[in-house]
């Protein structure tokens, strides 16, 4: 076959029970959270909620027990994440740490870094920011300007990161920066683990189009980093950041961002005849059913130790299109005059969040470039 394959996953009885446990917990924990708040999901920040998840063993699931994790596989984690997002749980506090920083530290960190940080991530009490983008460096990550220069006892960090999601709440940031000059376009980069309480760090809010504050500008002004702040090998930053992005791109957050709107739409449709718009609704459900299986398949491959970069890019591209179509379908299916205030608030939230779905974690065109490379076209 020419196209990449997506072997289907089969759910075990234990995984069905896991879903049930999550549902029972979430029904109680989110009972008072109105739909308009649940629609925030991945930007909804609630440290207590994250700690409660940690206590129940639903964070750091794939980390080894020796580091406070639970030794479960990527499919179990996928199930937990799906349930959280489908319910519109406020997951932002632990999100980045659990999704990508923990696996990154597990893979590339020193024993000391693993021992001190991973148990706190699994407990839902240690939050991370991603320090990749800068004002003049977006898709072209190799154009990063932030620098860490070697000193007698570590590094000194200078530069400014932008779009740092929840940088203002993060305990640590993994900063992708230049540590040496190199003729190789992808050489001379490293990742450093920056303790956000160090002197010389300024975090300034950047509001999004809805006036929400989640991302930030983070400046580092001669920040003195100890030598154990280096994450992985000096000069290996490019390869590390690419594998970090593979984690960032593979999860259900890449197709469930608008899910709360789907449930709200159906709630309101119970009172409204769908008329000729049923086709739109049915097609949306069909797309969702297939995307779920594709995403589960990627999780299954991660669980088997593979690195399904191409498959993850395909799911993210299809997922972002889907998430962005949901509000457009909703407005065709449900006419405004039939909408109730809660629905309207959810709709607005998703509508205004939608443009970001095909930007964050790699813009659509960049993903399509990755897919084209996977097809042998470049």
């Amino acid at each position, binding site marked *: 076959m*020419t*196209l*990449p394959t997506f072997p*289907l996953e089969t759910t075990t009885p234990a995984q069905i029970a896991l879903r049930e446990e999550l*549902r029972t917990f979430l029904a109680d924990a989110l009972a008072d959270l109105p739909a308009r708040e649940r629609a925030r999901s991945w930007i909804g920040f609630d440290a207590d909620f994250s700690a409660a998840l940690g206590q129940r063993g639903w964070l750091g699931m794939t980390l080894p027990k020796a580091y406070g994790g639970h030794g479960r596989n990527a499919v179990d984690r996928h199930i937990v994440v799906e349930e959280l997002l489908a319910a519109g749980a406020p997951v932002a506090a632990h999100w980045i740490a659990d999704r990508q920083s923990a696996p990154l530290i597990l893979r590339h960190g020193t024993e000391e870094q693993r021992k001190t940080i991973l148990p706190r991530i699994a407990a839902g009490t240690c939050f991370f920011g991603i320090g990749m983008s800068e004002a003049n460096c977006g898709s072209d990550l190799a154009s990063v300007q932030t620098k860490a220069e070697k000193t007698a006892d570590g590094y000194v960090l200078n530069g400014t990161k932008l779009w740092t999601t929840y940088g203002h709440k993060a305990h640590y940031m993994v900063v992708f920066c230049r540590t040496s000059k190199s003729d190789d376009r992808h050489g001379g980069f490293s990742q450093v683990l920056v303790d956000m309480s160090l002197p010389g760090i300024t975090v300034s809010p950047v509001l999004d189009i809805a006036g929400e504050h989640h991302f930030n500008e983070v400046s580092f002004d001669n920040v003195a980093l100890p030598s154990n702040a280096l994450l992985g090998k000096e000069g290996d930053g490019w390869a590390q950041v690419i594998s970090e992005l593979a984690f960032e791109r593979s999860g259900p957050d890449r197709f469930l961002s608008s899910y709360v709107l789907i449930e709200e739409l*159906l709630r309101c449709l119970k009172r409204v005849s769908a008329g000729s718009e049923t086709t739109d609704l*049915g097609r949306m459900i069909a797309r969702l059913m297939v995307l779920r299986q594709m995403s589960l398949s990627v999780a299954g491959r991660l669980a088997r130790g593979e690195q399904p970069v191409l498959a993850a890019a395909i799911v993210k591209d299809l997922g972002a299109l889907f998430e962005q179509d949901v509000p457009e379908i909703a407005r065709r299916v449900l006419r405004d005059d039939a909408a109730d205030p809660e629905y309207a608030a959810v709709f607005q939230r998703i509508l205004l969040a939608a443009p970001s779905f095909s930007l964050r974690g790699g813009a659509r065109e960049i993903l399509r470039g990755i*897919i084209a490379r996977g097809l042998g076209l470049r």
Partner: protein
Amino acid sequence: MDDSTYSMVIESAEKLFSDRGGKDFDPALWAAVEEAGFPLALLSEDRGGYGLSAREAFAPVRVAAAHGVALPLGETLLANWVLGAADLDPIEGPAALAWDGKAAVPFGRFLKTVVQLCETDAGLAVSVLHPRAEDWQPALNYAGEARDTLTLAAQAKPDAHIACAPVVLRAAMAMLRAVQIAGTTDAVAAMCINYCNEREQFGRPLSKHQAIQHQLAVLATQGCAAAVAADMAVAAFDRALEQSDPFVLSAAAAKVRAAEAATTVSSISHQVHGAIGFSEEYPLHRLTCRLWSWRDEDGSEAHWAKHLADWAVSLQSGGHLWPALTACDLREAT
């Protein structure tokens, strides 16, 4: 998952079907297909079959579609499956399911047997018919495949009844089209990639132009979605009689999603091929014309989308779509 049977089936199907594409039914090829045992794959061994899983049994259908082969293989598989469910003996020769009334029957004039289905108060009536050439009113689909209508005057006498909701069999046919679409989109992807790597314009291969790369990337994502859609329905087919809801929903979603993919894939494939892809001589149209036919046959997107929409809206109040969706997930056999 043990893939050895699956790989074996794919391998022998590849051997049989490569370079056998065309728009006419090929009796010699059919004989080879029977020789390989493909039409009986779904039946248990004590019914004279091979007891394969649906995934294994439908694999040759996918390969046949990828090679543009005109055979009622999937149709015969399903006809035999219904006969098995009705406790009737499997048949030799090409066969297809047909609904009572004036519906188009795939490859009608070439069939030895028609397994006719009729909704009655006693359940779904199954009649085994052997129409003559003059019983068919001929017609063709966009790809030139026979889609003939049976014109038998008398109502057939039922040979058996099966306890199976009619929608399950309609869904099975829809699943078959999704499987064929999946096989075809993969072949279209291959054809496009090869062509764009070879054809040069502006001093470099088409495949080096970013606009083309992105078109092919979109084509690939759609092809992958069609494949997963078909796989999902086929996997659920194994328990279609015991757990009909997850199967029917999966097949409905598969047909809708594969049809949507077929639309995008055929459009992009013609665009990147330029004029040559629009010519009779070039084989692309054999694949795209089938995509255009199959996306409408056995229930269009609108038909099956309505099924899904009605289901979603009808879920009990207080209940949500989400648990109903996850209830369709494949489960480990207990």
